[in-house]
């Protein structure tokens, strides 16, 4: 028996705004009267390490998405998509921002950052669909590269059982007023990208 309506894993690098996305999703779920569970990365890993947030819409159980159970893997950074690819369900969708954040091992020349196809190809073999978008550039179009996470949220909105107006409502709750317009534009641009 299914124990969650929609399982989402959001990954990226500390500082990219992973928590904002899950916060918006969780608040929107509450507005929809839907039970929701989530798990966040706090503490040490936030200092530039890999971060993962889980969110389970319509769920009353584990706050973490089980391995192999994610309906959507939303990756704010390409290498992190592959690192957490084992969360994807066979029927799942991976959505990947193609703009890399180079880890220190790469900037110091001790390892090489993989090509995008080396990330996308193996993921394509384990899930239904891999979608890539240059969310950082799209966010710049919306007014600020900082809104990259909201571009990704807009793209995600097409795949989840929550109405757009509730997501935008929740976005207004968490984004400071002066950044709201750029963020709303970012959301629409992200959404349009997957339509």
């Amino acid at each position, binding site marked *: 028996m299914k124990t969650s309506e929609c399982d989402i894993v959001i990954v990226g690098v500390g500082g990219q705004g992973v928590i904002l996305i899950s916060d918006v999703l969780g608040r929107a779920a509450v507005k929809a009267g839907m039970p929701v569970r989530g798990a*966040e990365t706090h503490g040490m890993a936030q200092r530039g390490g890999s971060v993962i947030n889980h969110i389970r819409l319509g769920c009353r159980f584990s706050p973490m998405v089980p391995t192999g159970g994610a309906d959507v893997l939303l990756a704010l950074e390409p290498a992190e998509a592959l690192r957490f690819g084992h969360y994807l369900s066979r029927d799942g969708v991976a959505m990947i921002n193609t703009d890399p954040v180079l*880890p220190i091992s790469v*900037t110091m020349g001790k390892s090489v950052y993989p090509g995008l196809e080396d990330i996308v190809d193996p993921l394509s073999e384990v899930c239904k669909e891999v979608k890539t978008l240059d969310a950082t550039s799209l966010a710049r179009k919306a007014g600020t590269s900082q809104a990259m996470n909201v571009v990704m949220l807009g793209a995600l909105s097409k795949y989840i059982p929550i109405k757009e107006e509730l997501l935008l409502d929740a976005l207004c709750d968490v984004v400071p007023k002066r950044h709201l317009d750029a963020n709303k534009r970012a959301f629409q641009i992200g959404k349009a990208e997957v339509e």
Partner: protein
Amino acid sequence: MKEYLLGNVAIAKGLLEAGAGVVAGYPGTPSSEIIESLASLKGDLPIHVEWSVNEKVALEVAIGASWTGARAVATMKHVGLNVAADPFMTLAYLGVGGGIVVIIADDPFCHSSQNEQDTRRYAQFAAVPCLDPVDPGVAKEMVTYGFELSEKLNVPVMLRPTTRVSHARSDVEASHTAEIRRGSGFVKNPARRVSLPVHVRPLHVELLEKQKKIEEALALTPWNSLRLSGVHGVIASGISSLYAEEALIEMDLDLSFLKVGTFPAPSDMIRLIVEHASKVMIVEELEPVLEEQVERVARKYNPDLEILGKGSGHIPRFGELDQLYVRNAIASMEGQPARSGPILGEALKILPSRPPGLCPGCSHRATYYAMRKAFGRDAVFPSDIGCYTMAVHMGTVDTCLCMGASITLASGIRFGGEEKGICCSLGDSTFLHGGMTGLLNAAYNKARITVTILDNSTTAMTGHQPHPGTGFTATGKWSEPVSLEAIARALGAESVETVNPYDIDSAVDAFKRARDYPGLSVVIAKQACVITARRNGQKPQAFRVNDKCEGCRICVEFGCPAIEFEGEKARINNLCAGCGVCAWICPSSAIEVMK
């Protein structure tokens, strides 16, 4: 109305709902957001909220408050209770005035910790009740219950969330703030408040006699539940019971199920499932606390019962569990196949690792660079707990044991016979927490070492909480900052110097003088944390690499994420915080301020 709440915020709401009057703690992942959330109210409520200097202090402040009749709380991470163990153990004998809830956040898998000790063992050790929540909503409910139980049975009550409760979120029913339970004053009662042998002998007997009442009271709580069904069963506690419950529903298995949310666990319910079943699996994280209790009951009521769990190797005694692990463990008991996620195998080998590290422009990197230059790579560098532990790859973090142990380990390493240079380091908050006694000891016993205080004027690792050196309290009130230099001198250090680590040449010279000092020397490397500096609106200078760059890689080896290598030249990327240290390091003067 429901809200989407972080576990620690839900606990903070629970404290307000229960009318807690005094809340004290020391920051530590995963516990910090409880006090942060209360402190953000900025003194709007008549509740005393403090960041204490360490966990022992926090618990003692809470105990004092309780003895006036206030409802009092101490919060900390699991290893913080080691520091607070002294008051904790005897408090159980002496008892409370207003209720005391001690909130200890465990960290299975050491996400952000130096060990993964199981605090339920401490509750057993002290003979106090322990509440083991499954999720944020239950954690909040347990707070009010904890105070009531504490007052009813005159014992402190432990609330023990784990990382996956404290840092989980769920839809939680929002609460109303109750009237704050302030104390009415200290009541003299030496027989219960003075731990003389003559007083504590009968109090120990009283505590032991209370155990049955504790178990009876806990058994009545809604967090323990039993469903008798098939002859195979699952007994699970805390968040593991959520994983087990989900697994049973998902696999549609007709098993008996005992869900445990309190310790000691309800023996009567255990007896019922033990008598009913032929085989049970015990699911809990870390120590076999529940398993041992089930084994004791089974020995008496069903010695033939097959018990699977840690003893049988089905459930590990380390790390954290998750839903899939628990599902597969139960599936194996039932002879069903395991399920696995996709195997990416070889594809993962191309991934560069991404461990957490010091921020671009972090002054700790500069301090360690200067320290290493002065002392040489062969010197011994005991270190401590904080952001700076992440600089382990720089070769200046040779030890990390527990809060404040850098100075004492350095002393012991010297007294043990090490002849090389010894330069230890610890942060400002860590120094005030547990380093001061070590420095006093080093001065008193004449340890020939150098102590470096990495003073970034905050408790950075846990989320930038204030401490007595910052000038502010938890609620943002001004409190005259203490001088680390004056403290070091008062504790007996004769050679004390403060340097700005961004001024690399001066810092190297200071470390050389400290190295050559024929006794205990202290270097205070003072520079604000780059994160707080940015939040305070400091605009960084912009740097660039000019065409004098010879591609020697010295700047890249410095290890700042803002320096990349492109082609045969260095490049400063947009992460640069403008500390300017790379410009000092570059032998070709190729890094310059952009005009």
